[in-house]
């Protein structure tokens, strides 16, 4: 995939994301931020790929240590982020239905 296309994808997704997120009221800024935080753990995809590439290029030990660390960190980010966001939102919602 050419560099140009990749950069184009970056620009488009950034703009679309910006426009959508603009609608989120300040009431929900903390959940929004922690949700986005969870999504930034999407780098997990890169981490998984790295494990694969590193194993091929070097050996399983290096890949396990370095790539594995990346996977663990990214996964904590993803799971912790979504989990905490869920907890918070449920808290908001509980009151809403009252």
């Amino acid at each position, binding site marked *: 995939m050419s560099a140009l296309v990749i950069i184009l994808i970056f620009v488009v*997704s950034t703009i*679309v994301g910006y426009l959508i997120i603009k609608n989120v009221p300040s*009431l929900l800024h903390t959940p929004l931020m922690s949700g986005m935080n969870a999504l930034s753990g999407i780098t997990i995809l890169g981490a998984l790929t790295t494990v694969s590439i590193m194993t091929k*290029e070097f050996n399983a030990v290096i890949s396990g240590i370095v790539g594995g660390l990346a996977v663990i960190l990214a*996964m904590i980010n993803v799971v912790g982020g979504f*989990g*905490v966001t869920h907890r918070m939102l449920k808290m*908001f919602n509980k009151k809403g239905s009252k």
Partner: protein
Amino acid sequence: MSEFELFYYIICGILTVTILFGISLMSKVKTAVMGNLISAIATAIAIVVTLIYYDILSQSVVLTICLITLAIGTYIGMYVAKRVKMIQMPELVALLNGFGGLASAIVGACTMFTSKNNFELVTSILALIVGALTFTGSLIAALKLAKLMNGRPVVWNKHQLITTTTIIFIIITVVLTVVNRIYDLEIPVLALVIIALALGSFFGIAFAIRVGGADMPITISLLNSLSGVAGSIAGMAIGDILLVAVGGIVGASGLLLTQIMCKAMNRSLMDILLGKTSVSTKVTKTVVEHVKVEEKKADVDVSDVLKNAKKVIIVPGYGMALAQAQQLVKQISDTLEKNGTEVKFAIHPVAGRMPGHMNVLLCEVDIPYEKLYELNDINDEFKDCDACIVVGANDVTNPAARDAVGTPIYGMPILNVDQAKHIIICNYDLKPGYAGVENSLYKRSKGVTLLLGNASVTLKQLLNDLVEVNVKKQENKSTSELLKQAKKVIIVPGYGMALAQAQHLVKQLSEKLASNGANVKFAIHPVAGRMPGHMNVLLCEAGIEYEQLYEMNDVNDEFKDTDVCIVVGANDVMNPAARNAEGTPIYGMPILNVDQAKHVIICNYDLKPGYAGVENPLYKRESGVTLLLGNAGETLKNLLSDI
């Protein structure tokens, strides 16, 4: 492009749109839970898709590593998500953010070894640098928020020069990396990785250490943005379009939040980055003196002001979070509403330490979000409100923002608290807020009540005053009537009577009641007071016949036939929680059955739990209980004169 690849790209496109859809659902409370779930599921699918696309499933070694680490990460993540308290949310967000950044940095570092062209090389070293600075910056922010580190901005000698130099070195390193490749300078990649890692990490520290507490909302938002950008660049390095797209979205959201926060704090992003944060810290003594006088004057009428208010606006700030006073805020709001007062909450966008911080805290204590209003929605209502309660907020209420040209807060949007008819400020002290600009509200002579100190203490006092006012209003009519008509009265003395030296008043009261034809008995709990038989001694001293004093077992069955029971400074010994609150220190303790009396008059100093620390449910009983709070000497005197 093979069909397999095409299929992969289509799936990536769908997942991106799904995530965007999930985010768009986050704009309403009702749909936000679903939105978050959709994003989470899309992420999970993306992980599976990646495992398939890069053929990881067929490589047993790689697969094992991936599955084990995924499991470890999931476990830790779930643990964290479950255990964290709402008050710790800012530091958690910062910390998790840092993890994501570090993961991106590692991906970038690894890709530097395997990059096939200059684009990959540049993006991987950038991912490494941005990821590293996100990590160290977030770590510092988290430490500051968790108060493991001093929250004040730390400015090094020649800080500006140091950061600028670091940026220049970073640029040099990136250029060098490319030159190294093109002209084969034979600089080992590992060396470049280490240099880039060091520079990035250092820049993160230098940048975050200079940001002080109140600028944290901006910093966290910015770091959030950076972690997305780091992921996105890492995605460019490995050619993963899903990573590029989602990272970009996160970057945009963080940037948007950063903008909102900056605007709300009247800061330019550059100023924050360059550390032009807090200004002067001078405190004028004159203001402090002013207050002492006002405090006294104000204490008298503050509860009346609230009691008679038709509309009250509460403005929470970081001080509320620090004092953990949100529960008290809720109680005050409930009490006011019971009086028929309309209560609203005004939330400034940068109140607290992260975007939406106050909303989370207030929501945690069951304040419905419909009552939380944003700056623009409520600012016109201050002029119609009878009272405004400020809890630990300063700069966001400072009228100086309107006219003090040249000060850091000039032009910052503020809550029009000064337009309220009466302002009650529960701040810790009179020091200027984070921006270092004195708040002219503090000096206003009319319509401002300052309740200084820890908000949880001052609010409790306020609440007690309110409750007292409430109680007095309804009871003044009935209590004396009840006592006059009572055929049988039991008096329960406790240590509070001893403290107030009120035994003589108790005797007068009992004589008065007896002369009205009531049968008066005293119920003495074995541990009432500070020594065995303490109460008996005191009552005898006052001249009460010992035949009137009854031990617990002898009198306990009589409470249910009693018209009125008067409790004087006793708490734990008549706390009904002892019967059923398992696990509390008083559970199982024998108590006086005060709660069985037809009407209970409690003359205690305050509503705090007694020595055992267990709340007394009697205080909250809706009917048949009269609370006369304050020194028993005073309250009993009032009671006497009423009869």
